[in-house]
Every structure is written in C-alpha cells, then in structure tokens.
C-alpha cells in the first residue's frame, strides 16, 4: 500500500470527516427505518427519535363495563388493570385523570371521588378500583387517562402486513422478469454503440454524440402516449397483446440508452490509445478488439451503469403501469406495494415498511457488483494482455 496521507492526525481527521458526512446522509434514512418498526399509531404522533428512549406518554385506557361488577360490602366494585387487554404494553403510571382535558390531574395511587359518590383509585402498576354505592348501568366502561412511562416499543407488524400480503411473491418474480433483461440488454447495446462512437471511423460522429446527449433530456412522461399508440398498433398488426414483457424491456432499454451510451462512451474513449492501435496492427478486427480488450477493461463502467439501470427499472412504476398489464402475471412489485396503500394514499406504516422491502434487492446488487470497482484492473490487464 501507498503511505501517502499516512500522517496520523490527518488520518484521524479524514476518518472523522467521513463519519460526519455518512451520519448526515444516513440520518434521514435511519428515521425511516425506525419509523417502519414502530406501531402504526405512533408514527405520526411523535418524532421517530423519541422511539429510542422510554418516554412519558399520555394514554387512554378503558375500564371494564357493568357486566364485570361485583358487589362487596354493600358497594359495587369494578376492578382491573389499565395495561390489560390492550396491545400488551406495560409501564408505570405516574398520574391519571378521568377527563380528557385533564389527563394528569391526580397522582398515581391516590383516590378521587367522582359524581354520585363513586370513587376511583389508580395505582402505579396500572391496577384500578372503581366503587359505587349504586349499581353500574353502563355496559361500556368509562375512560381513564393516564401518564405512563413507556419503554421503547418496536414491532414487526408493518413488515408482516407488507411481506405476507397476497400475491407479493409473484409480483417480486414479475419485477425480476422485467428488471434483469431490462438491465442487461441496454448494457450490451450501449457498449457496442459506445465503442463505435469512441474508436471507429464513421461520419457524423460528433453530431450523433450530440443527439444522444440531447435525447437524455427527453421527459419520459411526454413519450408515453405516442409509444403506447405505437404498441397498440403493432400488437394489433401482429395479433398479439400490446402489453408484453418484450415491450417493457425494449421501453426501458430505449429510455436507458442515452445515459448508457453517454457514460460508456466517455469511459471507453478514455482508454489508452496505443492499446487499441497495437491490437489493430496485430490484425484484430473491431469486434475482436471490443470483445477481448475493451469489454474486460470497461467492467467498472459497465457495473456502474448496471447498478443505475437496475435501480431505475426496479423502482419504476410509471413505465410499468403504462406498458405492462396489471394482472397478477404482470403486476410488478412497486405496483403491488402501491395497491396496498389504499385508494386515498398510503398509511405511513405501509409506506415505511415497503420502502425497505424494495431497497433490499438493489442493495444486494450494489454489493455484489462493488468488487468490480477494483484499482489496478486497468493496469493489470494491460500488462497481462
């Protein structure tokens, strides 16, 4: 290894700087991750950072109804525990109240007198005793408001509702069926085109490059109607459905090509000139040069493009809903998750959990392609070749 930048203080400084940037960048995502593990009612009720510590929370519990009353010493008594029955939470009650406006009017353990001679005691452990000189009539018990200290509470429910929804496995396969060819095909086509534009003699080269750059800016939304019309006409002409996998592969390929060609061309054009010239002198034709020399050398660039194209296709919803049907055999993962959100937009718990469900595959791809970004690949193969 090189030992430039090896000065110790600068080394520490470097590490600190990177840690700071990483923290800044991951902080918002951390919020999403923690939110996705929270109870769905809590997500929009308190900041996600508060989920990490135990906090005093104002809560509401409901006492048992008249069916559970017992007569004791001439008094009617209803007793129970506020932490019972609910979602299995426990905690310590510090204060309680019987009116929503004053949820912490009384300290825990104290006894308050209510209307009509009723008394209520709520203890620290959440147990309560309500007594009355007359029989309770309400089937539905009254509310008790209380302040309790809650330990951090996390749940996998949100993931469960996303991962075990019907048909999600199939839509996952559908997404892969769309994404894999829609990533590989443009790489191949673009790599050949990029090589031609970088190293082969052909007329209007500059113009072609400029047009490809110009096509980068074509807003996708604008091309949907003309293309769908074309698909319908082609489908009708050939007697096949207009919304097929082939159709969406080609669509993603078409939309991804300008960027692919642009990126790969700049990389391939930067390869050492003598490398290619010497191969030409050896009598290799361009196809051979491309296959044997250029393709292995531009692996890092291919890998980078593959990642971006994969991400874009994987996360795409618009192209999929327009060019692919929405039956179970064609609905992609993004479409499926979108359908879970309900007619009027999403509930936060599904949004947060599904964001992480979709991110798993792209991250796996990223990590598996990352090993191709290795220094010396270029130099090594030059020496070896």
């Amino acid at each position: 290894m090189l030992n430039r930048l090896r000065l110790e203080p600068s080394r520490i400084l470097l590490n600190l700087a990177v840690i700071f940037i990483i923290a800044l960048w991951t902080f918002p995502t951390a919020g999403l991750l923690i939110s996705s593990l929270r109870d769905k009612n809590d997500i929009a009720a308190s900041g996600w950072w508060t989920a990490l510590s135990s906090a005093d929370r104002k809560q509401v519990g409901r006492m048992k109804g008249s069916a559970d009353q017992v007569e004791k010493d001439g008094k009617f008594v209803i007793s129970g525990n506020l932490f019972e029955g609910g979602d299995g939470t426990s905690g310590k009650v510090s204060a309680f109240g019987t009116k929503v406006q004053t949820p912490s009017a009384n300290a825990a353990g104290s006894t308050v007198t209510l209307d009509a001679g009723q008394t209520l005691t709520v203890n620290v452990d959440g147990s309560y005793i309500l007594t009355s000189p007359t029989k309770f009539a309400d089937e539905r018990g009254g509310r008790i408001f209380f302040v309790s200290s809650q330990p951090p509470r996390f749940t996998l429910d949100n993931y469960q509702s996303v991962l075990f929804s019907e048909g999600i496995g199939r839509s996952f396969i559908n997404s892969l069926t769309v994404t894999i060819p829609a990533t590989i095909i443009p790489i191949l086509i673009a790599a050949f085109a990029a090589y031609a534009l970088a190293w082969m003699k052909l007329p209007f080269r500059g113009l072609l490059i400029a047009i490809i750059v110009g096509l980068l800016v074509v807003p996708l939304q604008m091309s949907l109607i003309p293309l769908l019309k074309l698909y319908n006409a082609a489908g009708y002409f050939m007697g096949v459905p207009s919304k097929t996998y082939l159709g969406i592969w080609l669509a993603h390929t078409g939309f991804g090509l300008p960027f692919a060609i642009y990126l790969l061309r700049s990389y391939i054009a930067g390869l050492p000139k003598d490398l290619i010239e010497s191969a030409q002198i050896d009598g290799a034709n361009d196809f051979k040069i491309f296959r044997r020399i250029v393709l292995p050398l531009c692996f890092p660039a291919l890998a980078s493009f593959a990642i971006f194209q994969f991400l874009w296709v994987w996360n795409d919803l618009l192209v999929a809903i327009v060019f692919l049907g929405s039956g179970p055999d064609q609905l992609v993962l993004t479409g499926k998750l979108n359908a879970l959100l309900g007619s009027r937009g999403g509930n936060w718990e599904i949004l947060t959990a599904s964001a992480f469900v979709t991110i798993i595959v792209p991250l796996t791809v990223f990590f598996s392609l990352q090993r191709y970004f290795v220094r010396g690949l270029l130099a090594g193969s030059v020496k070896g070749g």
Partner: protein
Amino acid sequence: MKKVLFISAAFAALSLATPALAELKYKPGEDAKFTWANLDALKKVDLKGETLTIFGPWRGDDEKHVQVMLDYFREATGADVKYSSSENYEQQVVIDTSAGSPANISVLPQPGLIADLAGKGLLAPLTADDAKWMVENYGAGQSWVDLGTSKGKDGAKNFYGFSYKTDVKSLVWYSPENFKDAGYAVPKTMEELIALSDKIVKDGGKPWCIGLGSGGATGWPATDWVEDIMLRTQKPEVYDGWVNNSVKFTDPAVINALDIFGSFAKNDAYVDGGHAGVASIDFRDSPKGLFSTPPKCYMHHQASFIPSFFPEGKKVGTDVDFFYFPTFAAKADLGTPVLGAGTLFTITKDSKAARAFIDFLKLPLAHEIWMADGGFLTPLKSANPAAYANDAARKEGAMMASATTFRFDGSDMMPGKIGAGAFWTGMVDFVGGKSSVDTAAEIQKAWDALK
C-alpha cells in the same frame, strides 16, 4: 425476437386459462336482506369466454370490496372480469384512452374529467334507457343523470357516467366522550357551531383539526369546506352557476364563502397547528388529533371515508361519531343541503360484457352487496337499507335521502385544470395568508386562460 413475442403471448394466454374460482362472500339465498332474485335473473345473461376489464380508483381495502361485488357478476354470467387500479389512475386513464387501449369500463370520480374525455370522443355513450332508469330509480334521479351527462365530440349531449357508490361530504366528526367530558352539545345550527368553537377556545382547547396536505393533491380538503359553505349561503342555482363559471369565482357569493371558510381555517385560535399548519398537515394525519390526550381538537370536517384513517380500534358510533355540518339559522330557507361525491362508471371500450355490466349495476343486489361489505352509500331507492354494514352508514344514507338539496362535489365537476389544479393551489395560498379577493381573482384568471 419475434419468438419472444409469441412466447409472451402464450404466457399471457396461459395465465388467462386458469381464473381463480370465485367464492361468494355472502351465500346466495342465505340472508334475506339481499335481493337474491336478481342473481337468478342475472344468470340468464351468458358471457362465457368474454373478458371485461375494469379500471377504477379503488385500492387496498376498497379493492377487496369491489372484488366481492364483482364475484357475483363473474359467477352469474361466466365473464372473466379483470379489475385494476393504479396510484395515478387519473393520468393513466388519459394515457390509455388517448393511446387507444383503455379498459372496457373506466370508473372515474370526476365528472369534469368525464366531460373532457367525452369531448375528445373517447367515451361510448350510455343509452337513453339507462338515463330513464336512473331518473326513475335513484333518489333525486335527474340530478344524477345530469351529473353523468356531457357533450360528445360532435357537440351532442349524451349520458356517459353511471353513478354507483357515493360518499357524503357534509359531515363533522367528533368524539362523543370528549364532548361529554367537556360538557359540549352537538350544534344544530351554524351559529351554534361557531359559538361552540368560541367556547372551546375559551376553555383552552382548539376546536378544529384541518389538514390540506395530500401529496400531489394538496389542497382538496379545503374545496369541500368551501362547497359546503356555498350550499349553506347560496341557492343551489348559484352553486351550479359557480361550478360552470357562469357565476365567477370573483363573485361576492364565492368571496363570502371563502371568507367564512377563512374564519375557521385562518383563525389561529380555531385550528390545531395554526393556519400555517393547515396547509401542510396531511389530511390523513389531521383527524388523529381528535383522539389524542388531551385532544388536539374537537371537530373534524371530512367525508364519510375518513374512518379508515382513524387510529386502529376506534369504532364509529361509540368512540367517534359525526353530525351534519349544520346550516345557518339565518338562512333557513335553503333547507338541508348535502354535499356528496361518488364514482361514475363509463364505457371506454364498448363490448357486450360492458353493457351487461352497466345493467348489472341497476340491480339492487349489486348495491346491497357492497353496502353489506362497508364503505358504500347508494341513492338507489330499491336497495334494502337493512343491508348497510352498520348504523353509521345507515345514518349517512338517511342523511343523503332526506337532503332537500343534493349537490355533487363542485371541484370534481369543474374542468380538471381548475377543480384539480387552480382551486386546490388557490386554497393553499389562501390559507397561507392570501386574501380571499386575490385568491378568487387568481383562480378565475386560471379559468379564463382555459380555451
């Protein structure tokens, strides 16, 4: 390459060959609240081998409801019904119809959009018999027919949209127990409502939760407020004129309605989060304030669908309830107007099955099934009210039936650029501090800019 095409086609055919056998949720003949005779009649319609595609706005739980209803049509006729939806389905309908590959039936919540599509010749008109049936069988039938009627490409007026499934919008949600704890009574008039709001402020609380946030549709909840207020301050004819812009946005009647809305939403003492919060708080989060301890607010004006955004386990009728958004005692002559919304079924690609499906929607059974499944109101007089899933729905249904005036959501009927554009953004600006006069002028300017 061609090979792939054929294989994809074969694949598609393969998946078609194995339709899941539908299991009917409510067994035919079992519950007397359903009009089962309809099902036997429907069985005479033979659509075996026909495919019917339906594109609608319902996703999530709503999609489960619509599938339950569709199962009966599948079972009785043998048709293969494919329902689909998507997040930006309004845009997708435009894309699909313009490109020439729409579903057989597209379900649209906006009459304004229907008028646009019909004007471009992209919708197949329904028959005069369909219109006649609706006049005779729907409560306030003619108004429903008018709602679905617009000009075709040739300029002739036709009936395009068949209303099925409606929502009531004129509701104020509250927690009866919170009202009881504080000693508040449900207001009967708008004057009482305002007095109650003032009282809540005096008691140290915030009366209202209003949230206009809705991602790409931010602002729409405010339009419901303004429409409800219009119906409570002006004659229905003025409302109709406002919707078709013969009464301008800058008309004093509209400005007045804006100002009344402003007296709620722009009043920092009235709303949770202050007027700045109103514009940005998400409409899905906003009603949660009713349930917090202590309550962030006591009342929430929203349509009948909102309980699906209440915290889990909150039962309508006990934990939370609604009352009719009251009228001004000073304007008693306007009766009890009700603002509603709903979905209209249009034929975007004509077929025998599509026509048969519209006929299916005329059967009381088609309404009763969804009524029983929840989240569905109907103006169909012959549908059995006993089929409603709960008392709340029955109460809403009764409210709609007893309305002296029923009007459809005005913003849905305005041209899309206004009703789903300038009106929304205008309301956000208005709540953010712009004056009612400037806001109205801005929206009117956008309307004038339309060709």
